[in-house]
């Protein structure tokens, strides 16, 4: 399979400001701490984690909205730098979480969807409209929508406009940062269907970020579970649910309440809360909350290793099994 996007050991540290009269140098927030991922063509890669685990920072680094502290981004076998940024942004587009704040209230829908074309191409008005029309139809909005303003639409329709804008340059990869978490369930399902349909029809790839396991599971072919700036488990969706390896992934799944009153109550919820990324614990970042933590876990950082073919986990529990580091 063709590798579309590859990130190599991406790190993003945010320096803290020095306080008045503070002698020792200020610390850093390790928002993303060494993420290496491959995204194949036509694939939907889900990224799941709790708030503060670095999902959004990672997506912004990949999109090159903020420079990484360390690491490389490769797209279609080429390293991405400032020089080919314009080209990269044409091929990779982003869908944002909040459809209320991500659309300019003073622009008509036509202008919103055409904006990427204005930036990236020299098309005239007629050519732009010729591109926009079929996208609008695919996205399920009537043609009258073109001359309206965002406030005339509901949340779900606005998110469709956001998706249409992302599709305007005919990208190969969409980075979707919590695209449905601001929507009601009945609307959410139609947007998820749209994403799935587009993946098949247009051959799109996704980096799909969400905190909702059921949403990620529905959309993704593979899932990466993040905890405190690191990927702790990575596997195909079915495999991840059938053979969950990392204790954190397990806890995350057990914590989701099933919409069935007779469902058996799962094992006790994970105690405590994620530690601060300012001063992450030594060793495995999860060891403070892990029910299986051993002495080794507080000393050594486990690397993400392939335990069974295609199934990676960063956990000492599974050390000795399987093969190489990712």
């Amino acid at each position, binding site marked *: 399979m063709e590798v579309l996007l590859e990130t190599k050991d991406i790190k993003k540290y945010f320096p803290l400001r020095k306080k008045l009269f503070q002698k020792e140098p200020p610390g850093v927030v390790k928002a993303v701490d060494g993420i290496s991922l491959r995204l194949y063509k036509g694939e939907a890669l889900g990224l799941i984690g*709790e*708030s503060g685990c670095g999902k959004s920072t990672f997506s912004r680094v990949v999109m090159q909205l903020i420079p990484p502290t360390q690491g490389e981004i490769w797209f279609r076998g080429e390293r991405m730098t400032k020089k080919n940024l314009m080209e990269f942004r044409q091929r990779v587009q982003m869908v944002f979480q909040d459809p209320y704040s991500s659309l300019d209230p003073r622009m008509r829908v036509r202008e919103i969807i055409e904006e990427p074309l204005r930036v990236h191409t020299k098309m005239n008005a007629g050519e732009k409209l010729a591109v926009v029309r079929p996208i609008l139809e695919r996205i399920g909005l009537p043609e009258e929508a073109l001359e309206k303003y965002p406030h005339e639409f*509901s949340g*779900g*329709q606005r998110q469709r406009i956001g998706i249409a804008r992302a599709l305007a340059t005919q990208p190969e990869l969409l980075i979707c940062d919590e695209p449905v978490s601001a929507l*009601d*369930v*009945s*609307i*959410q*399902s*139609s947007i*998820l*269907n749209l994403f*799935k349909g587009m993946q098949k029809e247009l051959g799109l790839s996704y980096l799909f970020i969400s*905190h909702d*396991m*059921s*949403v990620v*599971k*529905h959309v993704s072919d593979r899932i990466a579970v993040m905890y405190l700036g690191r990927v702790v488990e990575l596997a195909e969706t079915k495999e991840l*649910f059938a053979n969950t390896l990392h204790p954190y992934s397990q*806890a*995350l*799944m*057990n*914590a*989701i*309440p*099933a*919409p*069935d*009153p*007779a*469902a058996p*109550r799962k094992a*006790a*919820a*994970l*105690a405590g*809360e*994620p530690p601060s990324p300012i001063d992450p614990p030594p060793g495995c970042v999860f060891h403070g909350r892990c029910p299986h933590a051993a002495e080794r876990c507080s000393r050594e950082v486990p690397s993400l290793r392939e335990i069974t073919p295609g199934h990676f986990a960063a956990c000492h529990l599974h050390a000795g099994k399987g093969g190489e580091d990712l």
Partner: protein
Amino acid sequence: METLLEVKELRTCYYTGSRVIPAADDVSFTLGRGEVLGVVGESGCGKSTVARSLVGLIDRTYTRIESGQVLFGGKDLVKATPKELCAIRGSRVSMIFQDPFVSLSPVYTVGDQIFEVMKAHDPGLRRKEAQETILELMRKVGIPSPELRVRDYPYQLSGGMQQRVMIAIALACKPDILIADEPTTALDVTVQAQVLDLLRQLKDEYQMSILLISHNLGVIASICDRVMIMYGGVVVEEGTSIQVFRQPAHPYTRGLLAAIPSITEEKEELYSIPGTVPVFQFPVTRCRFADRCERAGERCFREEPPLTRRPDGRRLRCFLAAEEGRKDC
């Protein structure tokens, strides 16, 4: 089961310029002692309006309780004076809100905020005397090392801990009823599971009744005894959790359940309810769900179906499902 709270045909309207919007209309239900009643619906369906109307927490400039009764402890809370409501709120009926950080005061310590409620209902109480009770409360809701945390300000605590403080405040006077308006929506799943565990445990311990409002069907299913589904300001279906989740009867309930992606089963395409939640103007003379209902007939656009009780005990507001039900029996 002893009935603690009875709501009869409650109608709360919003006045916006020339429009009168029935945010809650013909809402009737009962809440028994030690029972957890879930209220489900999408945003704008009137869940919070109902909860706030119960204890008079509504903005009286734009909102009015038009009719109906809220019977609690032999009194009609709709007719209660602000003073009487104040005495009930916080002591016998408490409320926790969605976003703990916004609901807590940033300039008082956690301990002082818990004390404030206790003092409001017992003016003679001294802070020092209350200290032990406050610590006990914080221990009860699972805040580690309360002796230290009691002096913290809300910003020093994480979201889950803040929500625990909110619950401690709500429990300070050992209320009969706890109204929880989306208590876990702002929290992460692992923390959400902890807070749900806590609510379950407190319910058993204090025999407290909980009115739990949520749009998350999973949360509702995991804790509620009975469920009430709301749409467009009215109750469309109400029954035990098992009834509603296993055999949903109203087309809206069915749609809602089919629309959520599942963790356990594979669904290729999710069901989506066409259209969006409309805003209604008073008076409404049709089924509110008719526009989005695939099975709506001509009658659904002419009259509003009444909320009828079916032989199996559940209540339902639908012409079509009611007919089906009759055939079943």
